[in-house]
């Protein structure tokens, strides 16, 4: 008996082997049973979850490339947004220009300033409306804030504007309270300040009065705002008057071109010319 046990103990590895082989073969046979299927299913789900973790890990590795693609996409979207905002801004500007204009300005043409030359002496604007849009020479150019200038040259799709802040520009003006008449001109220097000339020292003009175009103008209808009196100094015969202009030429992007002009008959009887110096 003892020798049998010794022999068994000596060959336990064989017994283990047979036992495990038996279990394995039994498992192979029972593989289609429900319990084993459930175990198998559990194992496969574990397998899937680990594989998912591994794939998420590899996803982190490829994150840099995805980031670059997203940045590129972001840049594309940003450029589109910028473009749309620009278009929206332009539309608002046009709407504001139309809404703020006087009632009789409904028939006016709205044009965009496409070029400008600002210097201490020679200023000039170009707008994107020309003869094909009904623009003609000597039309008045303004914004809802006030007078901008007059049309001097016209091509098919563009027009050149002589702005108020040009040495060659002059316009007849009148103050709103004291009804003082004068001639507005601009000398070199500050783009916001023009000068009112030919106002006698006896005039009752006061600082703060608003100045508009008068009936004497050869190209502009009366009542277009010009600016406000900011300084009056008296000389021997005439006053030196500074007018702060209503229009901000530094941020001018849209203008209104007025087809309304003074009566041709009036101009002829006045003997006025439509040249630059004509008021």
């Amino acid at each position, binding site marked *: 008996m003892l020798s049998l046990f010794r022999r068994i103990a000596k060959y336990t*590895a064989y017994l*283990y082997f047979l036992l495990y082989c038996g279990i394995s073969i039994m*498992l192979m046979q*029972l593989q289609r049973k429900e319990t084993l299927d459930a175990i198998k299913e*559990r194992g496969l789900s*574990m397998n899937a979850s*680990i594989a998912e973790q591994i794939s998420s890990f590899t996803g982190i590795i490829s994150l840099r490339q995805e980031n670059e693609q997203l940045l590129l996409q972001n840049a594309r979207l940003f450029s589109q947004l910028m473009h749309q905002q620009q278009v929206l801004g332009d539309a608002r500007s046009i709407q504001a220009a139309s809404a703020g204009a006087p009632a009789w300005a409904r028939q006016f043409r709205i044009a965009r300033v496409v070029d400008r030359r600002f210097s201490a002496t020679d200023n000039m604007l170009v707008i994107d409306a020309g003869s094909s849009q009904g623009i003609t020479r000597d039309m008045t150019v303004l914004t809802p804030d006030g007078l901008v200038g007059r049309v001097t040259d016209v091509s098919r799709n563009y027009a050149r504007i002589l702005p108020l802040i040009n040495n060659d520009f002059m316009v007849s003006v009148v103050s709103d309270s004291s009804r003082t008449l004068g001639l507005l001109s601009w000398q070199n220097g500050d783009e916001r300040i023009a000068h009112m000339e030919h106002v006698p020292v006896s005039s009752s003009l006061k600082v703060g009065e608003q100045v508009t175009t008068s009936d004497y103008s050869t190209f502009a209808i009366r009542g277009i705002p010009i600016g406000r009196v900011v300084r009056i100094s008296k000389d021997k015969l005439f006053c030196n008057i500074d007018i702060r202009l209503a229009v901000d030429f530094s941020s001018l992007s849209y203008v209104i071109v007025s087809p309304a002009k003074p009566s041709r008959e009036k101009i002829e009887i006045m003997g006025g010319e439509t040249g630059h110096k004509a008021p």
Partner: protein
Amino acid sequence: MFILVLVQHFFISRLVILHASADILVVFIAFISMSIGQRTGTTYGFVSGLVMGLLSGNIGMSALIGTVEGFVAGFFHVPEESHATSVKKRRMYYGAGITALVSGNLLTALLNNPLSLPLYVRLLEIVILGTIMSMLLGALMYRFVLQKLLRD
């Protein structure tokens, strides 16, 4: 062992060349059988085969192959009291590894044929190529890890 099972299943077994891949588990089982004993090696083979079967969905066959691998590698067991030299231990390690791999791959080639390959293709590719690839892995393991454990 469980870490090795995961490494084998998710990484090494995916590096397939001509339907054969290396098997780090067999190398491990062979090492256990050679250094600890046939009984322990057989048990390790059985358990690791079970776990691998759980992951692959072929529990019984995996367990059987693992058991056979552990058992045959056990014939190369070097007892502690034998005071064998490291050269002999290395020789036995490679012997255990090759025997376990050949028997395991042979069983795999015979019992498992998911791609419906002809028998001679399975024998050539899985047995020969699989054994060579696994032994290369075993040599690397011996060189960098197991050599320190099998010193005189």
